[in-house]
């Protein structure tokens, strides 16, 4: 039932960004991925979501080999993600930005939409209802009709999460979601992440805000220069001498 990377290696020219890294995200768990800058966290996330292809190793989802699957195919199988720098559609409204997450559930094709056949109207109502509920849930009720480029930073981050959830994903990969948030907003984010996991979604939390990761994760994997140095519960990882040496710098 998991989303798994097995022994994946990724090289960029002469640089080995990841070397034989394995990681497993279970449904309903928050899996923290930490490591210093340049340790390969985002590279691993891009391999899992399909933006990169590994040079060696495989990516599996629920027993199915998806190493060669495109980003879109993985989205169809239930992988959603957010970006380190929020990638919203600045000219569209907050509601439209959340609704785009439901693209794959819209069954009306181009011509059915052009002629406004009943299916197109049904798609639209269902996606709107779903997006509105999610926006209320993540706390953007006040901004639903606003253009996305008028949002504050935290609002943008939460909107990206709503868009990801509108995909009805089995797994959601969050790339540095706490970046630039205030302590209060990070608490809200923690609550949102826990709720996603409790609802059965597998969450990969890529962060270098370690306190936050230890607080909300069920399991944590630590990377250093492209290799896994420790994997376990937050308590185990926190106390590991290697982790303390390379990462926490104590």
């Amino acid at each position, binding site marked *: 039932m998991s989303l798994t990377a097995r022994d994946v290696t990724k090289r960029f020219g002469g640089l080995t960004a990841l070397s034989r890294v394995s990681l497993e995200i279970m449904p309903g768990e928050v899996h923290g991925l930490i490591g210093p800058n340049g340790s390969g966290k985002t590279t691993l996330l891009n391999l899992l*979501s399909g*933006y990169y292809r590994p040079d060696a190793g495989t990516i599996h989802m629920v027993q199915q080999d998806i190493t060669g699957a*495109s*980003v*879109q195919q993985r*989205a*169809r199988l239930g992988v*959603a*993600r957010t*970006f380190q720098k929020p*990638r*919203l*559609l*600045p*000219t*569209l409204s907050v509601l*439209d930005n959340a*609704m*785009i*997450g*439901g*693209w*794959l559930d*819209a069954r*009306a094709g*181009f011509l059915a*939409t*052009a*002629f*406004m056949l009943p299916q*197109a109207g049904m*798609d*639209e109502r269902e996606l709107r209802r*779903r997006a509105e*509920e*999610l926006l*209320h*849930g*993540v*706390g953007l009720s*006040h*901004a639903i009709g606003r*253009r996305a480029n008028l949002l*504050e930073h*935290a*609002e943008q981050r*939460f909107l990206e999460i709503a*868009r990801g*959830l*509108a*995909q*009805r994903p089995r797994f959601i990969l969050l790339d540095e979601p706490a970046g630039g948030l205030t302590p209060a907003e990070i608490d*809200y984010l923690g*609550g*949102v992440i826990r*709720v*996603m996991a*409790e*609802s*059965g979604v597998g969450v990969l939390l890529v962060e270098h805000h370690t306190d936050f990761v230890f607080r909300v994760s069920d399991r944590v994997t630590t990377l250093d220069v492209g290799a896994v140095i420790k994997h376990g519960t937050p308590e185990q990882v926190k106390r590991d001498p290697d982790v303390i040496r390379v990462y926490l710098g104590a």
Partner: protein
Amino acid sequence: MSVSNRSWAILAVIAVLFTLPWWSGDLYKVHLAALICTYWVLISGLNLVVGYSGQLSIGHVGLLAIGAYCFAILAGTYGLHPAVAIAASGTLCALCGLVLGLPSLRLPGFYFAMATLAFALIVTEITLAQGNLTGGGVGLSVPGFPPPFDSPRGSYWLILAIAAVVTWLTWNVARHTWGRGLVAVRDSVVTAQAVGVPVFRAKLTVFVFSGFTAGLAGALFAVLQSYITPDTFVFDLGLFFFVCIIIGGRGHMLGPAIGTIVLTALPEMVAPLAKLGNFFYGLLLLVVVLLVPEGIGHVFQVLIERFRSARGERHGVKPDLERLSKAIQGGRAIK
């Protein structure tokens, strides 16, 4: 604007356009209005390509020419019913859009624009070279519409009706899931991929559709011109379509519509501007790009937002976790 306000506005516009032949005074203005509607048939389709999906096609004049010649040859030389010939023009140009789009839509922006430019130039050469089909440099005369559309007013109403239908189709595409997918392709390809939009297929689909509307416009344009030669389809016309959309604003429909009306009508109504010709277009483009780079449509949007935000804006996030949990589980239950 509330829904009922918008419906009233649309009804008013339709009423004004429908009654135009009675209040406009002279037939030349009716002809001009028909020409604007014809251009709009092409531009509203092209707007999905340029304004929504962000693919910079400057060669749609080539598709317009193919549609016009297709109509002139089928309805004139072979005597087919004009309705059949119009449909054939649209279909042929949709196919041409497919053939042109398949290799070129994978190219990055600038190179795609060059490919469409090359296409337009090739079409001109072909119309010159295939003399026994197209009349070469001498050209072809084009039959009119059958009764009751054979008068200037009749033609105008027919063209207006076609333009209204095409506007409705493009509006539906732009305002729903497809429109959002296209904007995602334009503004952030990685986002489009992440939510599952098939980027190339989406671009190709709207490009083929824009070929269809360009073909329809070509047939209507040929009738309005009543005689076509390769010189009717100068490359400037392709740039003109493109400029109408840029001045109107990307990602809007009202802006490009205003752009089309102003850029077509002004040089015809104000004699001194006609003398300036392309200089006028160039100047207007320069002014818009320097003052409101997002186009006229954006100005309207900002004005509406100003009006709305007078009620005061709240910022920040405060999740409602219980509701979020229900929203996630509710969504998953359906899957």
